[in-house]
């Protein structure tokens, strides 16, 4: 899962990714979505078995988790749908609570000759989009990168000139595809690059990309992530939003516009700056105090935003203490302090706070907290903070 300090996260389902790919001329298996067992059975009889039924959740690992099943008849499909729809599917990426299944993607199976891997991401060294291809499909690309790096080809795309024919020839050769596929590969890569750039994606992944028995290149599975920061120019992507797939506190954080990741510990961490937030978590962990969350309130936070962030932390019932570590730059300590006080008062919380503030308007902030009558321990350095926390968790 990915989070943004701007609170504008859109994740999309496989069927939506495939729909978008199809609009760019990328071939996808014949199929459609179903929301209940009856529709599923109807769809299968319409498509003609054998079919594959895929649970639509915002997490990977569905195959092993039981979310992808073959259906050789409408009846079998109905049974699968009855088991899946409404259930919480648990995979290695969902966490213990699982993710609720509302929709199934039902597709006609494809007669596969070969499975390959294709993705497009942003590359730091070439400062633009990068295509990643591998003749080994269906596997986790990170696993391939770790064990068979020679099986991965990286093809940088120049934003001015676009994907080039020579790159298509190189990819074909690398994938050990017959030269007759050079044109098809060119068209596919041009489509993937167009989709990536025009929609401000952060990831377009086709895994596996398969060659079927009719020699067509088909996106058998599809994953698209977007650059949260560019969503302002793709407002129609909001239609893709599926609130049911997001952890409740993280959903609230998204709305409040703060970067929040829920973790399993008891120390609520309120920090500004991602680096300092991570360092603060490292510090807590170092003295045996496990963080309950990552939370970066960002630079230009308002009182309301801080208050919302604190309330989200406080509604995590595991939290027994709030650790505040702020180094004011753009964020001013007085605004931070007011936000904290507002949240504690609104909720009526009495949890203890350990606060270390520094930087812009630190005196005003300290005064506000001091006068608030909340249970605050002040630290003036990180080592003092470490000491206080260490004492509490000793």
């Amino acid at each position, binding site marked *: *899962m*990915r*989070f*943004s*300090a*701007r609170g504008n996260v859109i994740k999309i389902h496989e069927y939506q990714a495939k729909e978008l790919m199809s609009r760019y001329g990328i071939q996808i298996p014949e199929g459609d979505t179903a929301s209940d067992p009856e529709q599923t059975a109807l769809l299968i009889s319409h498509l003609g078995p054998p079919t594959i039924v895929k649970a639509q959740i915002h997490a990977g690992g569905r195959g092993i988790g039981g979310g992808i099943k073959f259906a050789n008849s409408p009846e079998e499909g109905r049974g699968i749908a009855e088991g899946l729809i409404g259930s919480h599917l648990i995979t290695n*990426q969902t966490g213990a609570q699982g993710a609720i299944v509302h929709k199934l993607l039902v597709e006609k199976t494809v007669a596969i000759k070969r499975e390959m891997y294709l993705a497009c991401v*942003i590359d*730091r060294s070439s*400062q*633009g*989009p990068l295509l990643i291809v591998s003749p080994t499909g269906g596997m986790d690309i*990170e696993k391939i*990168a*770790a064990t068979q790096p020679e099986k991965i080809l990286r093809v940088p795309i120049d*934003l*001015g000139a676009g994907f080039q024919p020579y790159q298509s020839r190189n990819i074909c050769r690398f994938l050990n595809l017959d030269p007759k596929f050079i044109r098809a590969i060119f068209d596919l890569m041009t489509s993937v690059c167009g989709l990536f*750039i025009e929609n*401000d994606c*952060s990831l377009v992944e086709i895994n596996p990309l398969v060659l079927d028995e009719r020699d067509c290149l088909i996106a058998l599975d599809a994953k698209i992530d977007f*650059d*949260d*920061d*560019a969503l*302002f*120019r793709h407002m129609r992507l909001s239609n893709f939003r599926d609130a049911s797939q997001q952890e409740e506190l993280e959903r609230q954080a998204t709305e409040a516009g703060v*970067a929040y*990741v829920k973790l399993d510990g008891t120390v609520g961490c309120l*920090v*500004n*700056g*991602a*680096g*300092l*937030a*991570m*360092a*603060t*978590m*490292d*510090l807590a*962990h170092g003295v045996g105090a496990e*963080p309950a969350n*990552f939370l*970066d309130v*960002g*630079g*230009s936070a308002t009182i309301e935003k801080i208050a919302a962030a604190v309330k989200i932390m406080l509604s995590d019932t595991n939290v027994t203490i709030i650790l505040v570590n*702020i*180094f*004011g*730059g*753009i964020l001013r300590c007085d605004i931070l302090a007011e936000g904290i006080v507002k949240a504690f008062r609104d909720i009526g919380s009495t949890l203890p706070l350990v606060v270390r503030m*520094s*930087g*812009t308007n630190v005196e005003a902030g300290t005064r506000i907290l001091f006068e608030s009558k909340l249970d605050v321990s002040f630290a003036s*350095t*990180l*080592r003092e903070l*470490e000491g206080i926390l260490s004492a509490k968790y000793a």
Partner: protein
Amino acid sequence: MSIFVNNKTRLLVQGITGREGGFHAEQCLTYGTNVVAGVTPGKGGHIVAGKIPVFESVHQAVNETGANVSLIFVPAPFAQDAMLEAVDAGIELIICIAEGVPILDSAKTLNFISKQGARLLGPNCPGIISPAERCKVGIMPGYIHLPGTVGVVSRSGTLSYEAVSQLTALDIGQSTCVGIGGDPLIGTDFVDVLKLFNQDPETELIVLIGEIGGNMEQDAARYIKEYVTKPVAAFIAGATAPTGKRMGHAGAIITGSDGTAAEKKSALETAGVVIIPSPGEIGITVKNMID
């Protein structure tokens, strides 16, 4: 001496009439920076902080004031436009504070910049400060800095303030502190800064503050091993971050094996870098290296 900025810096602030822009332009001015101009379209002719003239465009500002460095405070959706305008007007060093610049905007901007021969710091960075030159070009709190001989370079803003505070508290001054920014695509990286620190006669020791995600620290390790003759201390944030989750910074997501804190620390250690074990021990580690 210092790197990137000094007492010849003639600073322009883009987005100077905004809340953040105005506040920080004044802070820079107060610190001693030669803030010569501001730009906000539609606000040409205004005066900020009693003395900084505001222009309609960067071209006008450069023509009238000879500005050579620009600090950008415009909102992220307009950052590409502001950066390209600065490059086009001949600004040599552009420092983009904005957080949340679309990554393709950064890519297009970097492509244009590399063609034109300018330098970008950021986006999503706190800027640069050279205490001995009384030159602050960024949003860092100036008062925590002390002139000295430690060069600081960091991906994280607030964590670099933390580092500087610890150094200053131990009476260890800084030559220049550079925040390179937390985005996955940035204009100036660790290697660029290490190269300059290594050449800078005033810098005697380098503190590098990295974090999980990407492989910039590994690149830095390779560079240090081969070229850097000065002692380097490093802290890497995110040792306890879970895999596959994005920790705020767009650049801070661990993918596969090449983004973990452990791997980065090990690469740096191999290059002879002193690893700082805890974020509270940055200052003391450097002190021990000096003593």
